[in-house]
């Protein structure tokens, strides 16, 4: 511990912490723009400058470490003046259109402007970059004019996800963050994970907005059928102002019915269906000498990553579609038939924590029902905007149950939200199918938590099944390289593109690890509170196999619930 004096307060602090961290201890929040608690120190925005004794110049609090006897001032007139001047400089190169910006009232630049009392006219000539807004991607909208070059997205895209689409181009005043070679996002290796959107402090990287598509189809008189992903129920209340980890499953149904959705189903059902198909595929691969390790295919970000960077190894991917796409096929076939609705008239909409799902639903392979299986994906963020626009006071809503017949999912389906969840759900089913015994301890703690790589071995009647779980594409790359070099003797690997799994997805409210942790706790709580916790025990699953699919991996299952992969290597060429 060392002694410092900060804003006149003597304080003992840990050696080596930054001034920014030290200031928090005396309840001072120094404004920051480029700093992000989960990322490396950038120290480029210079908004956080403070006075340090012995230093002629102002020093950035985010990177400057405290030292014994240091005297720090964090808000002298000299500092405030410098900060305001830097804000003015940012404004002079930033569109002045807060009123119709997607980030209005959630923008970090805007809130610092408010905190710093930026109320005088800008002394500098205002000029924007004049770049066209890139709306080519189905998942992410990129407005380079709003970018403040903090570098967060670059770190996420290159270091954490190792996708390498975003980087700086040009120099000085002309510097921009851009995909390579002047390409639009759609033409790049971008996997649509949306983690860049999660860290962008301003409105430069936002979610591709599909809300109007829903309104349009409602106006056309289509029947709106919705499915809600496992993690959405844990994050939508947060998007509407509640604490992270506030579960609001039944309130979402109420709100969506009020907005005009005709049927609201639970994606837990098709998560269970995925387990049935994927689990049986794994059993088949193990018993018939198929390609191992098998890897999960429910994450569209990971699937595109594999198709792009490891196109020769897509036979490791399970052929099972993701829960969203399975549900899509089922809604426009089995459900349409059962409910007596012309599938032509159904507008199928899913509520996802994910931006890559928008890409997935538009894949040409996803038309097994004879129509586009899922017509639109709304992220949690977008649905929360619709609820807001409808004037609904979400916190006060009554509960409404999901619609039949797909209103009952298992706890296993619920687990899909968290990293390791698909694996845990699969193990619960695979164990019982393979051994014929009842699994007593159904909680697989080895695959829970936020370690980059999690491993487990399960003895199934003498067969040792080795599994691994990775999250973030940087980790996926590491394990793929091991698979290629033959150093990964697993049977089954779960890969989720987003750090923390879907609960940390790009379509969720703005994340940090603390929030993701709180959300994850609730995912496991929901599993615990359900009476049915294994996919194969779900009555809806039994029903659909009895009435429609007959058995896992049947011909019908293959036609509707399984898919193919493509080689996207060419996208890496100039």
């Amino acid at each position, binding site marked *: 511990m060392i002694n410092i004096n900060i804003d006149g307060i003597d304080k003992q602090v840990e050696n080596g912490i930054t001034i920014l961290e030290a200031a928090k201890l005396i309840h001072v929040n120094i404004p920051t723009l480029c700093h992000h608690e989960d990322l490396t120190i950038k120290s480029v925005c210079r908004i956080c400058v403070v006075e340090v004794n012995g230093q002629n110049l102002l020093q*950035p609090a985010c*990177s400057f470490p405290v030292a014994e006897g240091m005297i720090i001032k964090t808000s002298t007139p000299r500092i405030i*003046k*410098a900060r305001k001047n830097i804000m003015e*400089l940012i404004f002079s190169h930033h569109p002045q259109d807060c009123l119709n910006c997607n980030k209005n009232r959630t923008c970090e630049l805007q809130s610092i402007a408010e905190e710093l009392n930026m109320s005088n006219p800008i002394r500098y000539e205002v000029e924007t970059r004049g770049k066209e807004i890139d709306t080519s991607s189905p998942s992410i909208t990129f407005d380079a004019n709003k970018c403040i070059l903090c570098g967060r997205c670059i770190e996420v895209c290159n270091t954490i996800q190792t996708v390498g689409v975003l980087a700086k181009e*040009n*120099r*000085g*005043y002309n510097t921009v963050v851009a995909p390579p070679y002047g390409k639009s996002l759609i033409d790049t290796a971008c996997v649509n994970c949306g983690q860049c959107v999660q860290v962008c402090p301003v409105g430069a990287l936002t979610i591709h907005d599909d809300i109007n598509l829903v309104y349009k189809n409602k106006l056309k008189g289509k029947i709106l059928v919705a499915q809600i992903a496992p993690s959405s129920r844990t994050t939508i209340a947060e998007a509407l102002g509640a604490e992270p980890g506030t579960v609001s499953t039944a309130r979402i149904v109420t709100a969506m019915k009020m907005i005009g959705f005709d049927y609201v189903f639970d994606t837990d059902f098709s998560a269970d269906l995925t387990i049935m198909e994927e689990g049986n595929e794994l059993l088949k691969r193990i018993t018939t000498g198929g390609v191992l390790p098998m890897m999960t295919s429910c994450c569209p970000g990971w699937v595109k990553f594999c198709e792009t960077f490891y196109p020769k190894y897509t036979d490791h991917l399970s052929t099972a579609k993701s829960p969203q796409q399975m549900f899509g096929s089922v809604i426009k076939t089995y459900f349409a038939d059962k409910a007596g609705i012309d599938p032509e008239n159904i507008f199928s909409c899913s509520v996802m924590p994910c931006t890559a799902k928008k890409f997935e639903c538009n894949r040409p392979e996803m038309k097994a029902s004879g129509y586009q299986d899922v017509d639109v994906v709304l992220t949690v963020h977008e649905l929360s905007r619709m609820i807001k626009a409808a004037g609904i006071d979400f916190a006060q809503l009554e509960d409404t149950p999901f619609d039949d017949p797909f209103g009952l999912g298992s706890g296993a389906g619920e687990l899909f939200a968290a990293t390791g969840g698909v694996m845990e759900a699969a193990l619960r089913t695979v164990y019982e199918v393979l051994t014929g015994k009842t699994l007593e301890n159904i909680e697989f703690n080895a695959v829970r938590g936020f370690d980059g790589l999690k491993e487990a071995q399960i003895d199934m009647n003498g067969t040792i099944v080795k599994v691994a779980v990775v999250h973030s594409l940087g980790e996926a790359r590491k394990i793929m390289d091991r698979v290629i070099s033959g150093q990964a003797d697993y049977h089954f690997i779960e890969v989720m593109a987003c750090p923390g799994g879907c609960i940390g997805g790009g379509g969720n409210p703005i994340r940090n690890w603390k929030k993701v942790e709180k959300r994850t706790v609730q995912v496991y709580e929901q599993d615990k509170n359900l009476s049915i916790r294994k996919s194969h025990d779900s009555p809806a699953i039994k029903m659909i196999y009895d009435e429609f699919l007959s058995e896992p991996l049947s011909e019908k299952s293959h036609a509707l619930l399984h898919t193919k992969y493509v080689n996207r290597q060419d996208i890496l060429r100039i």
Partner: protein
Amino acid sequence: MEEVHILLRNKNVEHMIDASVSMKMGGYDGLRNALSMDGAKVIETLKESGLRGRGGAGFPTWLKTKFAYDAPGDSKVVVCNADEGEPGTNKDRVLLSSDPHSIFEGMAIVGKAIGADRGYIYLRAEYSYLFPLLATALKSARNLNVLGNNILGSDFSFDIEVRSGAGAYVCGEETALFESIEGKRGEPRTRPPFPGTYGLFGLPTVLNNVETLANIGPIFSNGIEWFRSIGSENSPGTKLFTVIGNVEKRGVFEFPMGVNLKDIIYEVCGGIAGGKELLAVQTGGSSGAIINPGQIDIPLDIDHVASSGGRLGCGTIFVIDDSNCVLDIVKNTLEFFTNESCGKCIPCREGGVQLLKLITKISQGKGYVRDIDTMIDLSITMRETALCGLGHSTAIPVMTSISNFREIYDKHLDKDYCPKCSPKEETPERGLND
């Protein structure tokens, strides 16, 4: 006035690329002496010599060396900053081409001090024609075992590689230089960590300017006393001055530290060319202070120039006659800085362009008093908050020209024509990567 040639002592010697010729002229004698010392003793010698960096900041060379010496780690690096990027400056080029071995020798001595086994010369991209020359010189040094394994029979091994970037001015900033050698975008790093502990490739690193390194051999061969007898108390030794602009005789000159600026302009360089009058002098390159004729009677050493608001910097003296307008000079400097800003930090990236826009507006007679105030405000913010020296020093010519030539600024306000300013034009186009 007679020059004092220590660094330029071999300027007119033929075949100085050859290590044997260099050794005949006393080259590598300093290294031989240093080889018998331990690292601490080498640093002690540097300390007593009082040698300070010649690249710009004037930081004590021994202290820099000691930071890397004290840093833990088996692998350490010496870097020679030969990215001589200040406009108009070419003293390092003269040293590199006329006496490359003096630089290798300095690097080897610093390597001996910190226990480094390799050094890098980061050569300015525009000096790429020196590549073969340096390669030949390095080869001949290795042949005579003044570089390479077990130098001169000792247990000290040290070798040098030459690297180059793509010609960005900011890569003369030491951490941007490291990034460039590492093959990354040339952007300065945030400090701490400092290069002494985390420099090139993350290793403890000492980086010195070419001229600083060229001083080290003579110090170790001729002794501390000899070195301290030259120059001034706080800045011993000689300094290379590149004189450019409107003087009769331009070039690179070597004088003891503390030589009078006025004497250099009028006695050494023959005064202002073409019978014109002196308008202003900018010392220390584009990032230096712009001073008026009343301020040129100053001794040129590191502390004196610093106390007058500028910096000795790399020793460039830019003499401007009265057919020019100071605003034009500042505008030109700002165009340079906005082109060379790497764009990493906001104050430099955005501030430089705004300064340029403001001065362009004033020079076109469209400015107001408040625009000058805004320029002062902005200069202070850039100076106080920018990430690296480039952003800090963009402000210096602006602030000094406003305080030393305020009446010229005032004359431009609300008038539409200055006969001396360059032809009126709109805000200059900033081309991509130019």
